[in-house]
């Protein structure tokens, strides 16, 4: 299977690989996927309390090239967005941006799930209710 150029570029030059301090109050961490399924994503956001803006985002991913690219792209998109805007990131926009084939759509779903999980982690830490999301369907 041939990868799109964008996937290859993210794979070769992943953006924002790393770790934020998960104990910090303004860091939200989302860990999704499972090792036995062949992909695990950890996505972290750092939020400015005053403005509600995401000032930094980092990821680490165990998975195929498409999973790595999806999470790398997600971190790029998260930075500079407000938390509310971040919630609107839809997996299909990741699919379109990376030209993911149908068998790789689950990678984008995982990235969307990771964003939501990170935001909820941040909300919980800061005394806000977790947002209930509908179950992703493409699992």
């Amino acid at each position, binding site marked *: 299977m041939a990868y799109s150029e964008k996937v290859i570029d993210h794979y070769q030059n992943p953006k924002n*690989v790393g770790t934020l301090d998960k104990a910090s109050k303004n860091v939200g961490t989302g*860990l999704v996927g499972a*090792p036995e399924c062949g992909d695990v994503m950890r996505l972290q956001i750092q939020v400015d309390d005053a403005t509600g803006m995401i000032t930094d985002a980092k990821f680490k*991913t165990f998975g195929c090239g498409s999973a*790595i690219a999806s999470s790398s792209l997600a971190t790029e998109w998260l930075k500079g967005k407000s938390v509310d805007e971040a919630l609107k990131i839809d997996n299909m926009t990741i699919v379109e941006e990376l030209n993911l084939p149908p068998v790789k759509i689950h990678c984008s779903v*995982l990235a969307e799930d990771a964003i939501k999980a990170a935001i909820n982690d941040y909300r919980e830490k800061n005394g806000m209710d977790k947002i209930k999301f509908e179950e992703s369907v493409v699992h």
Partner: protein
Amino acid sequence: MLKLPIYLDNNATTPMDPRVLEAMTPYFLNHFGNAASRNHPFGWEAEEAVDYAREQVAKLIGADPKEIIFTSGATEADNLAIKGVFEMYASKGNHIITATTEHKAVLDTCKHIEKQGGEVTYLNVQPDGLIDLKALEAAIKPSTVLIALMYANNEIGSVMPIKEISAIARKHGVLVFTDATQAVGKIPVDVNKDGIDLMAFTAHKMYGPKGVGALYVRRKNPRVKVTAQMDGGGHERGMRSGTLNVPGIVGFGKACELCQLEMESDTQRISKLRDKLESSLLKLEEAYVNGSTEHRLPHVSNISFKHVEGEGLLMGFNKNIALSSGSACTSASLEPSYVLKALGLGDDLAHSSLRFGLGRFTTEEQIDYTIKAISETVNKLRDMSPLWEMYKEGIDLNSIEWAAH
């Protein structure tokens, strides 16, 4: 200078040896006759060439030329052996014993047999990929007609104790069929010493052309028969109709001859390279060999690199190194390798595996390049892997409740 890409997927197929192509060429152009044309020189030439190739093929496995049935490849030979025995020996019984790690050509044929009213026992293998002989013997019933176990496994290279298997089969009057696709031409295979009744193998795994293979069918002690699965002109002693693929068969014969001549020197050279590759990659932390290292083909190594995913790993170098992985993402089914899972590997380790298949044309320079490229990619991906980070922090990954999806 090193030429890229490097081919290390010789279990999938091998490049053709130029000497094989040379032997074949005249049979496309000048000697194009049909080997079944009995009344003119074109037919005679073709028949003579086929006879000669049949001898070359038979010699490699210690068989009589009359015991070689040419087919389109190993898949067809697997089908002919299993379905052919099932039908031919229907009055004796309907039970077949095989193993979960067999090639799909055997497993799916067995599934077909079950639909036809047959009974199939799928034996589990031990962690080294080999069969438990006691379990095998225990599975034999009065209705058992065939034991179908591969000579060497295509994913991990483990070599089954065929001699011991056939001794058990003999004791109970059961026929032994072995899919020896990966073994013939690579290690000594002798149908008489090994006690094999039927054996499938193919040219393109031993530097011959694609589209030609053979089924060995024993003629003496016991005389084995299979019901034809392809009806027509009664070629190949009635067991496989269809005009013979003369150039392919000539190439198959030449490939067998070369393997026989060069097996020892090839094995010596290739196994040294394999061992270098393996020991160098095992210097990486948390890298494990899958399957037996004691009973194994000399050119194969299957290694799992924990906490990196196989397809992601391949992507780091697959422009330059041709390899395959047990990762789900590289197969159409989205399931990780059923062979690795049968060894008892968790899905995570199965996802993290690479299969190396070295060959006659593998060079030390290629192996050095491969060691470097893979080590770098594994390290790069581990720096990117949340599982590796947790492992390094001493977190037990099994203690985490993963959201299965």
